């Protein structure tokens, strides 16, 4: 019996202690009509060897081409130490650290995680992680509405340049609470919000979401917009990429007062892409917002002997204490991913993180330069971009991407569904994992595709 340690003799002894004759008797309170046979829809059990072989065969068929996809999930180098340590049983197979004395390892790691995310975003308080960047953004918006209390307009401004999938998650999670999402238009020539974006917004609102860099890779005028939003009594929520923060001004320094909340997806910090999950969402805020934070928080304190130690704290915000009046229903978060991110940041340090950011910046710019050297390919946006960029092709993007696949290239993300106003637009990205050879190969392949397949489908 895989995983079940009982011998027959032990089972007999245990049943005797309980005072029943058969295992079945232990289920005698369950109405007979409800008992079901073993589920026929599930195949027979297999040993580890056979299961791993199936998995390996399937995984081998999923091997990835050379990828220039970003769009919210990024292929970075993950130092070998990150997962060799994060996967240690003591981290991997522990529960949420409810018993602080028996969980100092996890608790100190999370305290360090909070410190690192606080340092990166320039905001005083970080929680212990949320599910992903999109749900973290939703939680940030809810925080803002809660913070405004009686003044709440139940309305949040959402730039068109925020990740389209994040916008959909916001709808799912905020709609049940009657919060209105107002879409802010961007300048399709620049690729970012106009500096006066808020002037056209009439009525009150609780928060402005500000992606930096935005989904199109372009930098938003965050200082002006932060000032404008805060002048109208709203909170500013930065939605940021943690790698880019090595070089970009942190949300805590935007405008005069700094953004109030920062959030985003932590996957770039040492987490494999895994088709999108598990990664983790991070969420940091100014200290006065601390009690509005959802999720776990670890604090440093002392023990009976005065020795420093760590514990979950401010649990009065949470569902297991406050139940229906909690800041969120979140319970399990993405702790192991936060552990991996802590290892990643410790291994890289500030200098290493800068190097990664610089490489991404340099490689994406080199990619744009290489590809826009081809006839029929041009840079679509004029705003300054960081490590993603939008190209415009002289023909529909989808067939081009499909043709590139035959060259073993994932050429980027087709924007035509979400941003039809940009035309045949393609979002490309090159991290430190794409070298000169990769970029050259993309250019040559794209040249071949553009030459040999002259627009087989009419433009829509």
């Amino acid at each position: 019996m895989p995983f079940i340690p009982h011998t027959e003799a032990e089972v007999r002894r245990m049943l005797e202690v309980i005072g029943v004759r058969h295992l079945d008797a232990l289920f005698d309170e369950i109405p007979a009509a409800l008992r079901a046979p073993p589920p026929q829809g599930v195949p027979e059990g297999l040993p580890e060897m056979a299961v791993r072989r199936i998995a390996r065969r399937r995984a081998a068929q999923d091997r990835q081409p050379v990828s220039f996809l970003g769009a919210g999930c990024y292929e970075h180098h993950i130092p070998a130490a990150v997962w060799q340590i994060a996967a240690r049983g003591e981290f991997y197979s522990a529960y949420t650290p409810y018993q602080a004395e028996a969980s100092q390892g996890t608790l100190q790691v999370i305290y360090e995680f909070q410190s690192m995310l606080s340092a990166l975003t320039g905001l005083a308080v970080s929680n212990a992680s949320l599910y992903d960047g999109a749900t973290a953004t939703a939680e940030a918006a809810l925080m803002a509405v809660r913070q405004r209390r009686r003044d709440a307009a139940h309305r949040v401004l959402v730039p068109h340049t925020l990740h389209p999938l994040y916008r959909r998650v916001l709808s799912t999670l905020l709609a049940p609470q009657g919060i209105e999402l107002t879409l802010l238009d961007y300048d399709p020539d620049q690729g970012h919000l106009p500096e006066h974006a808020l002037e056209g917004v009439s009525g009150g609102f609780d928060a402005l979401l500000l992606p930096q860099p935005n989904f199109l890779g372009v930098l938003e005028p965050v200082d002006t917009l932060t000032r404008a939003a805060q002048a109208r009594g709203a909170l500013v929520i930065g939605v940021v990429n943690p790698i880019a923060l090595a070089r970009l001004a942190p949300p805590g320094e935007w405008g005069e007062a700094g953004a109030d909340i920062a959030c985003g997806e932590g996957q770039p910090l040492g987490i494999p892409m895994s088709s999108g999950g598990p990664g983790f969402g991070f969420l940091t805020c100014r200290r006065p917002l601390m009690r509005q934070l959802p999720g776990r928080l670890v604090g440093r304190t002392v023990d009976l002997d005065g020795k420093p130690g760590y514990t979950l704290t401010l649990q009065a915000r949470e569902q297991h204490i406050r139940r229906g009046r909690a800041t969120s229903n979140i319970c399990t978060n993405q702790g192991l991913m936060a552990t991996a991110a802590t290892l990643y940041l410790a291994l890289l340090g500030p200098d290493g993180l800068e190097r990664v950011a610089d490489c991404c910046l340099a490689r994406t710019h080199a990619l744009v330069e290489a590809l826009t050297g081809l006839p029929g390919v041009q840079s679509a946006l004029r705003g300054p971009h960081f490590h993603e960029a939008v190209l415009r092709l002289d023909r529909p993007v989808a067939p081009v991407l499909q043709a590139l696949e035959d060259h073993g290239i994932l050429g980027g993300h087709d924007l035509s569904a979400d941003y039809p106003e940009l035309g045949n637009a393609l979002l490309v990205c090159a991290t430190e994992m794409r070298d000169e050879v990769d970029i050259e190969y993309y250019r040559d392949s794209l040249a071949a595709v553009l030459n040999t397949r002259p627009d087989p489908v009419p433009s829509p």
Partner: protein
Amino acid sequence: TDPMLIFEQAREGRRAAAQAPERPTRVPALPEAFRRRKRPALPEVSELQAVRHYTRLSQLNFSIDTHFYPLGSCTMKYNPRGCHAVASEPGFAERHPLAPSTTGQGMMACLHELQDWLTAITGMGDTSLAAMAGAQGEFCGVAMIMAWHAGRGDHQRNEILVPDAAHGTNPATAALCGCTVREIPTGPDGDVDMGALHEALGPRTAGIMLTNPSTVGVFERRIREMADAVHAAGGLLYYDGANLNAILGRVRPGDMGFDVMHLNLHKTFSTPHGGGGPGAGAVCVSERLRPYLPVPQVAREPDGRFRWLQEGDRPHTIGRLSAFGGNIGVLLRAWAYTRMLGREGLPRVADYATLNANYLMARLQAEGFQVAYPERRASHEFVLTLKSEARELGVTALDFSKALLDHGIHAPTMYFPMLIPECLLIEPTETESLAELDAFVAAMVAIREAARRDPEQVRGAPYRLPVRRLDEVRAARQPDLAWRPEAAPDP
């Protein structure tokens, strides 16, 4: 030797990692306005320092891989190492979420099977794997219930019934979905008070959230009657899958009359809890709620190929719960676990989880400890109440818990469910051996004896852990939530 913070081991200018790429020779200039002016206060340590620090920190944890961990309602059982190997396959781990489905057929084949298996195991109509944890699964469930009522034009139903012993996530979820919560008391036998239930039901009833076996560790015997009553009142039934381990492959929530449920794959399906996640909260629904399932979901085309169903395929969906497809790495572990257990292994989980709980309960009773519902069978867990020990010896459930740590045993869940005084909720799980259970009993007896000799000593426990009891009041009153560079104020 106290563990220092990684920041305290750092020195400015240290560059002892091979982990960063080389600095590019030409970096495009960022406009001044966007630039960060000061480096973030991240630690500058050597690779060895980082490895040593986090290796040593890990050793301070209790975990399944090192300790018996009978944490009630959390199903802390063995996380097979083979499942980790499966999820770590480079083909799975390195796939980009927006890559075309042609590059993800292997992964999708696993998820599609898992959907089918979970549907079969729960006796429901369909499964979505999109929810990233139990609480998100709960959100889905209640949101689907509300969408169903709304879809029928029944807009007045905004009341969710919840037993008083329920997990805190239940009322919190109802609130998130814009509902009001109405608590139903538990009867003296541990079952829900049927009279109170009938009284609570009415035209405002959106539904009820239940787990069965319940949070007090017993099977709700009149579940079909409850289901009929709720359905008759126009409400739907939500099953909280936290306790599914007790009946896995033995009883199906669909057969009990539930309309929607979530499963905690990080409990029943043994994906690791990782010190606080990631989990996965698969959601299963009966046919009538199917149109509302969250996206994405894996579908199999007539030609055998797999693809993601999106909003366009599910016009009535409650929507999207995460940017991409959920915690896929966790789902792959659950796939591997289920494939290893197989049809015949699933009911064995319930059998032996139940055997272990009932054995432990019987032995503790024989040693004179008091259980909350002595007339009832334990499910996979049971509630012990230490109120007489607290009264007579002045040693509380908390004290017993902390003293257990000194015996190398993780404490059970304490003071939950809240309605039972001085309680411990004990869930041994099916993967622990008889020897571990006997060691638990011996530890409890030893602690009680120690308390009889010297209660003060027990109240001071633990003594053998990296720290003694922590000042939680100070932690909450003077929150110290992040390290700052020497004398640096909050940013």
